[in-house]
């Protein structure tokens, strides 16, 4: 197939633009550049997702799916998609950064005025959330970047020993 030079150039520019648009959410470029015991980090050291062959997600993305659906789903809807009154976090994370995310989950949020009464609880004392905060962030980050579809990730990496150890430390008991 012969492409004209113009068409090829256009295609190249389009591809570069696509890459540029895909590589940024509220915390920056989500590309995983470092790995520690099955947990991935971007160039700024912020936790991120890693999707492998055949859509296999890293453990923390998978764990985040489960923990999100345990404690966040009841207000924020399935798969970070939002409900009739709480925002779709897959959209929120397009502009919300990691630090702010941690602060909101730990401290809660109030939007109370004459038009609405939206209150998010502070989860700071809830081990079931705080011990998996990075997992939930990584999962939502993956959703925000369309790296994982809706629903339970079909394939995931094995649970690293480091993840179990972190749970035990966090809960203060054998988990």
């Amino acid at each position, binding site marked *: 197939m012969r492409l004209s030079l113009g068409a090829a150039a256009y295609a190249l520019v389009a591809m570069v633009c696509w890459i540029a648009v895909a590589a940024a959410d509220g915390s920056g470029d989500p590309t995983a550049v470092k790995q520690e015991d099955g947990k991935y980090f971007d160039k700024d050291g912020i936790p991120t997702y890693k999707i492998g062959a055949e*859509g296999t997600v890293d453990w923390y993305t998978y764990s985040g*799916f*489960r923990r999100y*659906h*345990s*404690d966040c*789903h*009841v*207000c924020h*809807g*399935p*798969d970070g*998609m*939002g*409900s*009739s*009154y*709480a925002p*779709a976090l897959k959209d929120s994370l397009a502009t919300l950064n990691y630090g702010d995310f941690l602060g909101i989950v730990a401290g*809660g949020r*109030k939007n*109370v005025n004459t*038009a*609405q*009464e*939206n*209150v*998010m*609880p502070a*989860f700071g*004392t*809830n*081990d*079931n959330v705080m011990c998996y905060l990075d997992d939930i962030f990584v999962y939502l980050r993956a959703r925000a970047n369309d790296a994982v*579809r*809706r*629903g*339970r990730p*079909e394939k995931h990496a094995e649970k690293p020993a480091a993840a179990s150890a972190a749970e035990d430390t966090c*809960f203060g008991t054998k*988990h």
Partner: protein
Amino acid sequence: MRYLLLKFSTFGAVAAFAAGSAYANDALIKMSENPKDWVMPARTYDAQRYSPLKQINTANVGKLQAAWSFSTGVLRGHEGAPLVIGNVMYVHTPFPNNVFALDLDHDGKILWKYEPKQDPNVIPVMCCDTVNRGLSYGDGKIFLHQADTTLVALDAKTGQVVWSVKNGDPSKGQTGTSAPFVIKDKVLVGISGGEFGVQCHVSAYDMKDGKRVWRAFSEGPDNEILVDPEKTTDLGKPVGKDSSVRTWEGDQWKIGGGCTWGWMAYDPQLNLVYYGSGNPSTWNPSQRPGDNRWSMTIFARNPDTGMAKWVYQMTPHDEWDYDGINEMILTDQTIDGRARKLLTHFDRNGLGYTLDRDTGELLVAQKYDPAVNWTSGVDMNKNSANYGRPTVVAEYSTSKPDVNHTGICPAALGSKDEQPAAYSPDTQLFYVPTNHVCMDYEPFKVSYTAGQPYVGATLSMYPPKGESNMGNFIAWDGKTGKIVWSDPEQFSVWSGALATAGGVVFYGTLEGYLKAVDAKTGKELYKFKTPSGIIGNVMTYEHGGKQYIAVLSGVGGWAGIGLAAGLTDPHAGLGAVGGYAALSNYTSLGGQLTVFALPE
């Protein structure tokens, strides 16, 4: 002759005594016999949601029109329905739980409003939207159960607070969503918090001054759950000592759930109040071995003392969050040639139960949605050791933590949630708003912190395999346990139904349609799109010689959470296109009462 005389006078004395204790000063029963009014949440104590009004009938309902409307000023899920007493309509709202008294003689002009000041920090402790299921009336007072668990009595004429009591503690995850229930000189009220590890209860308060008279927990020691080990029966047998605590491990019952956020019914002749309890805490079954009594249970209690006459647990050791709180509908029907006093209950678990409401005998337990698969049925053999227990299909048990159990029907929201069914004595059919949704369910270990969610499971929901409708509105024969007709709906039917003597049955859809169907055939006769999805209960009243139909619109509740973004099929494999319809494509938030009538 002498013998007959003695027998007659004894009967007369007994009848007089019964009438005296049950009916003395009970103006509310008399008021509920006036079909023009709607004086309690289900109009009458039997919870049939049936109106004798028949100005609107199958021949003319097609001409129904919106007559007037009222915006509540609140944009969250609007459950329940207004009350109408004489020329005044009483409308309630979701949090902040405002109450309006509207003058029907003057186009709904606001006579008074009550606007409680509640700490907004109660909002995040409400698991499933900030709904409220409505008001009750008694002795010149309107009763409201606020989100922060305050039970308040308002002067029906002025809206002034007569008394106010705190029924629970939101800092421990306890909240209020249910409608209070007035019986004789008491106001009964439940409590919410099954997802927050609350040891739930029903409490009775003196109607005059709000002093608490009794409190019956759903689980705990005998003196807390108000059962008599020898006199309280379960399917005819005494429950025995420690019937609840011996079905829990250690102290787990103290954070046991069994919450009482649903509807109540009352039989004045038997003097029994009926209600159901919700799921045990947590959603992770392996953290609470045992049958977890008396969660998921139908209670029949004496309203004066709270003592239970009989109990029946529908889902022992729940593994799916099938709360047992749905309405108890009382009917008098003939089964096998015998006239019986019945109680019919469409449980979250997908089974339609018919019991003898006097003795608690189980007569029927059949699936009211063919898709139900977690159980192969209830053991109806009175001589069996498992009599009354549902047989769990191993494939759909969720007993293993950290395992994703797939394809369970119904989903946790059940074949029906709190949205109440109706009964027509004309057709002897029940009209049931149902959900048609299945789920994957994965439990895992969680720790308890007071005031924080205590859930412990992940779930994803989708319609049954090969189907795309997420709901059906059905007609059900409770004597035989059979579906008579079924109208499919795109979304779960989440509104309360209304049956009328005009042969018309009404319900609302999540897209916002108020619909009228023929009670005999289910044929759609009328529909109108209200401003927002309907999760309220349709009601009817008469004013100035005209019959009106009224329903609250305002999408929310669990439907607004689980269905807003649409469902996807997790087993469709890579490359599946889209999912099922998203409710957010049909409706946004709203808060409105729409009232319908025939044209002049």
